[in-house]
Each structure stands twice: as C-alpha cells, then as structure tokens.
C-alpha cells in the first residue's frame, strides 16, 4: 500500500538532487523487499471479507525468520488485506531471528508482531514482560481455530500471548515411491517392519537411511527430531510431556531407551549414511543436502519435516506415486495411536494498538490461512482451513495429518524447552552423539545444563 505518496516523492526528489544518495534509497527499498509490484489496487479486490477492519489505519511491522521466496509469498498473502484496509504491513525476515529478537526487545526497538517458532523463546519474551496479551477478537479466533494442544504453548497464567501461524509436520519419513515399487518394498506399518525393511535394503548393498545434522548456527537440530519421534513412540505422550517440562530428568532411563532406539538407526554403520560416508559424516552433512540421494537410489529413507519439499528441484514429482513422498513414522505396534510431532510459528504482539490487533486478528482467521496456503508450500493447523486450496502434495499430506481430528499433535520438544537447553546444549549433544560420544555422557551433559 503506497502511503503518503506525495510527501515521499518530494523527499525523494531532494535526495535525488543529493546525487549518490539515490543509490542508497533504491538500495534500501530493494533490501526491505518492497521494491515495486507491491501496490495492489483496492478497486480490483473484493473488499467484503475485510470490512471489519476498514476504518483502521496505520503501519504494522512484523519480524520473523522467514526470508526470500517464502517471505514473498507471505507478502502476497496479505496484499488484499492491505489494499482494502489501508493498513501497511512491513515484514522483515532475519536469518538471526532467534538471537536478534531479544536484542531488539531489550533495545526498545520491538516489532509490532513477531512470528516466533519456539515456545521456549515465546515463554522467555513473556517472562521478561515484553509480550502483550492478545486482543479479545484474536482470542475468539484462536479458540475457534486451534485445539488446546496448540494454544497451550502460548498460554501463561491463563492469558493468551500468541496465535499459531504456520505449522509443519516433523514425523515424516521421506522416501521414493518409484524406488520402493521397483524393489517391491512396502511402506512399513510398525517400527519393527521399518527395521526389517532397513535390513533388507542394507543387504542389497544400499545404505537404507540418509541423515544430515549440519545447519550452520543450528547444527544438530535434525537430531533432536529423531529423539523426539523415538521417545513419543517408545514411552508415549505423558512421558514426552514430562520430559519437555523437566518433570523427569533429561537423562531418565526411558529417554536413554529412546536414544538407543533412534541410535539403532542413526548410529548404525550398516544403515547410514547413504552416499555421504561413515556415521560421523552426519555431523557435517547439511540437512538440505542430506535427503537428495533419495532421488537416485543413494538411500531409501530420510526423516525430515514436511517443509523439505522445497529442496527438490522443479522436475521432481512429489506424489504418492512420484519421485518422492512421505509416510508418517510408524508406531511401535500395529494399530497403536500414531504420535505426530511438529513445529510452527506463533504470532506474538508486542504493541497494543488497534492496527496491530487488526492485523493479528486477520492472521488468525481461516480466511488468512487459505490465502497464505493458496500461495503454496504452507500449512496451518487451523481447523477451519480449507485443505483443498493447497497445491503442493507434501503440504497437502502434512495438512491431512495435522487437521485430522484423530491426530494428537506434539510440539517439537527441543523448541519447547528453555532455549539454553533446547537450542544449544541439546543440539551440541546430538553432534557429539553421532561423532562417537556415548549416550550416557551426552544425556548427562544435557541434564546438567538445565537451568
């Protein structure tokens, strides 16, 4: 939405006269990702859905870890809202979001809304007194759209401090349906079947699994997904929740058992690491790269979130009978409840202004979820979202699982733990674990770091 157009023009002319500063100006608008093309005209849009907010004006800044292509899709998803209401949404994505958000808050430079992917960080900004409780309209939308499992992560002392935004499913094992069909393999229904299948593939001379933990600053996080999925299956929801909230110690024997269960795959030299080398290569293989050998039979299975579909090039078909697809990691026993683990962002307000409330309210509606999902590669756990607007098959699959009434959703445990454990010691521990440190030592180190 172009705001105070003429005023800015005049200033721009002044600056232009100053010569080289023009470069700076265009550079700035380029960097903030808003150069051209953003001006959707209100006349072309059906403004009826946005009537509730039509008399609100202002600028709302949103800060998140979402960048590049994804951020552009996001900008498009609220373009109509901006055009109809006159509210200008300025989104800024940062690769160092988790470290920079607290700095901005402490420095008195808070964004109006932040999309926080970790309940642990969310709790920290609430504890430190920066977040403000959501407006009444937002709360109503949130209770309508999400189950208690989701809202619980943003509720403190009975107050709701954020609403879920995007969601992903991290109990997903990627595989190649073509490769499975060529070799007469079937998608395993139990953990034991999965191990049997791994043995069969290993005997054929292929390493059945690909694993990669490298992720720059966040190296180690894919390992936590392995542990969390194993723990949910071997010990169940209650133990998982106790573990995340530290009601049982991090190195509880049941957790050690889950480590062993995951380790039988991840640390098994016969099973890993398809085309990347020995077990240790997991530590230096980036998670983006790690799953690609699925395409040429370098390995058969890869545990990674539903968002991994973005890594495949255009010619690759993601479909149940295509080049790649996913199945939900099976439970220990046939017919048992299949636990689903995943993550997502929470939209958290830091300012109590009507335009902020308006934007937040819009973001928490199913209409917004549909608008964003129709831009591709995105899922919300909003129960009232229309899954048919999703075109990307991996997101469709994730939505199907996430929105199914039978699904009990478990938030990614490491993200929900205090950040000194969940985003650091646990990650480092996973790196040590795949490079040869014993499970006992790793568990002890992580437990002793709990604040």
């Amino acid at each position, binding site marked *: 939405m172009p705001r105070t157009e003429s*005023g*800015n*023009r005049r*200033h*721009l002319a*002044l*600056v232009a006269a100053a010569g080289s*500063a023009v470069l*700076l*100006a*265009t550079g*700035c*608008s380029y960097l*903030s990702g*808003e150069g051209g093309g953003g001006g959707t005209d209100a006349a072309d849009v059906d403004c009826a859905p946005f009537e509730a907010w039509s008399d609100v004006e202002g600028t709302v800044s949103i800060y998140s870890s979402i960048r590049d292509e994804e951020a552009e899709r996001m900008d498009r998803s609220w373009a109509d809202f901006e055009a109809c209401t006159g509210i200008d949404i*300025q989104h800024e994505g940062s690769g160092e979001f*988790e*470290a*920079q958000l*607290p*700095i901005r808050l402490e420095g008195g430079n808070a964004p109006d809304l932040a999309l926080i992917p970790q309940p642990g960080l969310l709790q*920290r900004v609430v504890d*430190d007194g920066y977040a403000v409780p959501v407006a009444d309209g937002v709360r109503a939308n949130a209770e309508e759209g999400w189950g208690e499992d989701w809202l619980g992560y943003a509720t403190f002392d009975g107050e709701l401090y954020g609403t879920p935004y995007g969601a992903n499913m991290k109990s997903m094992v990627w595989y190649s349906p073509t490769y499975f069909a060529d070799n007469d393999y079937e998608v395993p229904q139990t953990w034991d079947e999965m191990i049997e299948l791994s043995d069969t593939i290993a005997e054929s001379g292929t390493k059945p699994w690909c694993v990669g933990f490298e992720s*720059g*600053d*966040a*190296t*180690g996080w894919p390992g936590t997904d392995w542990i969390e999925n194993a723990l949910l299956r071997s010990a169940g929801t209650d133990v998982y929740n106790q573990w995340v909230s530290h009601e049982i110690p991090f190195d509880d024997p049941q957790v050690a058992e889950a480590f062993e269960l995951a380790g039988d795959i991840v640390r098994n030299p016969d099973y890993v690491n398809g*085309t*990347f*080398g*020995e077990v*240790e*290569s997991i*530590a*230096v293989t980036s998670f983006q790269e790690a799953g690609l050998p699925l395409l040429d039979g370098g390995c058969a299975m890869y545990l990674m979130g539903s968002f991994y579909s973005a890594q495949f090039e255009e010619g690759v078909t993601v479909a149940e009978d295509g080049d790649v697809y996913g199945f939900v990691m099976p439970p220990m026993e046939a017919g048992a409840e299949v636990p689903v683990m995943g993550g997502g962002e929470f939209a958290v307000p830091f300012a109590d202004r009507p335009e902020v409330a308006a934007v937040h309210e819009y973001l928490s509606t199913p209409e917004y979820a549909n608008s964003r999902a129709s831009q591709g590669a995105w899922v919300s756990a909003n129960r009232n979202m229309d899954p048919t607007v999703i075109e990307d098959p991996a997101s469709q699959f994730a939505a199907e699982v996430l929105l199914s009434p039978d699904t009990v959703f478990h938030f990614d445990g490491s993200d929900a733990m205090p*950040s*000194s454990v969940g*985003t*650091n010691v646990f990650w*480092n521990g996973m*790196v040590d674990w795949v*490079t040869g440190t014993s499970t006992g030592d790793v568990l002890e*180190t992580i437990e002793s770091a709990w*604040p």
Partner: protein
Amino acid sequence: MEFSFLDELPKIVWMLIGIAAFLGVIGLLLLLVDVPRTRRDRWQAVLFLSPALLLLAGGLVYPVLRTTYLSFHDRSGDEFVGLANYIWMFQRPEILQVLWNTLLWVAFAPLLATAIGLVYAVLVDRSRFEPVAKSLVFMPMAISFVGASIIWRFVYAYRPADQEQYGLFNQIVVWFGGEPRLWLLEQPLNTFLLILVLIWVQAGFAMVVLSAAIKAIPAEIVEAARIDGAGPFQLFRSITLPSVWPTLLVVLITITVQTLKVFDIVRTMTGGNYGTSVIANEMYSQAFSQGQTGQGSALAVFLFVLVIPLVALQIRRTRKARELS
C-alpha cells in the same frame, strides 16, 4: 517503500553519533600518545575533546560498565549473583575447552602469521617479481573473514572415498592414495585448520608492514655488513631483525588483539561445533542465542581483561617510538 529522509532521521542521527564517537576515540588515543606539555595546551585539548568524550562515555565506557554490571547478575539482569558467572565459566568443561581453544589461537596465529609475513618480506625484498609476489600474499587481506572462511570450507570439504572429491585437501590425500578425512571433525586438528584461515588472511598485513620496515633500513649499514663478509643468514640475524624489531612487535600485538576477538571464522566454518568454539563466539551464543546475559557478559569481561594489557602495551610502544624520533 521510498526513501524518506524524515523516516530515516533517527538512524542518520545515530550514524552521526557513531562517527563522532569514533573520532572521539581517535582523538583520545592521540591525546594519550602525545600528552601536551603545557597547561594551556591541555585545557585547549580538553575543550576540543569534551563533546567527543561525552559521546565516548555513552558509546564505550557505559557499555563496558553495564557489561561488567551484568556479569555479576543473573540472566534477567535483576538479581545479584556475585561471582557465580565467573565460577561457572571456569567450571563447565565445555567453557574450559573454549578458553583452551582461545589460548591455542593466541599461541599460534599471531606468531605464525608474523613469522610467515617476515620471512616472505625478506625473501621477496628487491627481487624482480616483488610487486607481484607481494600482492599475491596481500590479496587475502581484501577478503572478509566470512568470505575467507567460505573459501576454506571448500578446501576442507569431504566426500566419501568412492565419490569425486571437491575439497582440495581431500583430493590431495586421495592422489597420494589416502582415505578422505572429515577435517573439520577431528579435534584438536580442526582448531588448527581454522587458525590457518586467520594466518592466510593476516600474513599479508604482517608482510606489508614488515616489508616497509625492511626497506627503511639504511643501505649503508647493509652494505657495510656485506663488505665485512656477512652471509644472508647473518645479515638477517644481525641487521634486519634488530632493525625491524619494534615494527615486529607492533604487528604481533595487532594480530594478537585480532586473534583474541576472532569470531567470524569460527562462526562461519563450524558455528562453534565440534569443539572449536572460542570466547567471542561463546559470548554471542550465551548472551543472544541462549539468553544467558550474565554468563555472556562474564565472557565478554574476561575477553576485555585479556585485551587491555595488549592495547596498553601498544600505546606505550607507539609513544616511545614517537619520543625517540
């Protein structure tokens, strides 16, 4: 969004404050180095420097005090915890490893970078290809630490034996019939491989400065030594080395301060994983990623304490050099 001067005004004001603070630091250093001799000169200097000094107080002194204050408090900065953060620092094995790594960096990087720079400067001095040879070594200086780290990550890259190597190191190993290795995982070798990056970047700096010092040695002295029958090695030991000694120390101290603060290389190449973290990286990760402001501040203060004597030494040396000339 179009550029609006009014919108950007606060940022511009901050930028001006930053520039003023920077000039203030320079002014203060000049003042320290060149203490005015008369009382009138002194008052004049104080008068001119006072605005800058105020900004310096806000931009440098206050943060130092604040960081020190925070290092004695818990993560929220509210509760006084005494020396707990410092005790934590010297008790946690992973932090002890960080301190040990920093020590390794300081022990090896400045010495090797300076030594390589010196030897190179001596070897190419007055040779036919001197300008080309010097620019080759100096060029890495133009690359940021982050850029250099990315380049070296490729040098250390690993692929299993049955695949084509794209890392230079492993390709060489394979040519000689060896097995490719995961260089960045092998402790403590990986720390040395990271140190190599700093040396690669800093040797050029050492070389240029030392080369200038070598060229400043009066030709008569060199000639006289030659006539007395000094060989190249003797010439180096008895003439070149003593003549460039003050410069050598300046280079050494400068690179040492750089090394103590090293952050970008570690962060880009390993993110502090695989036992390669150093104080500056750990400080960032504690204070910002993990929100342990107290522990991060304690690390920052410790780093500050380590750098102070070196900077003081540097200033004293510069002052002495000026007095001599």
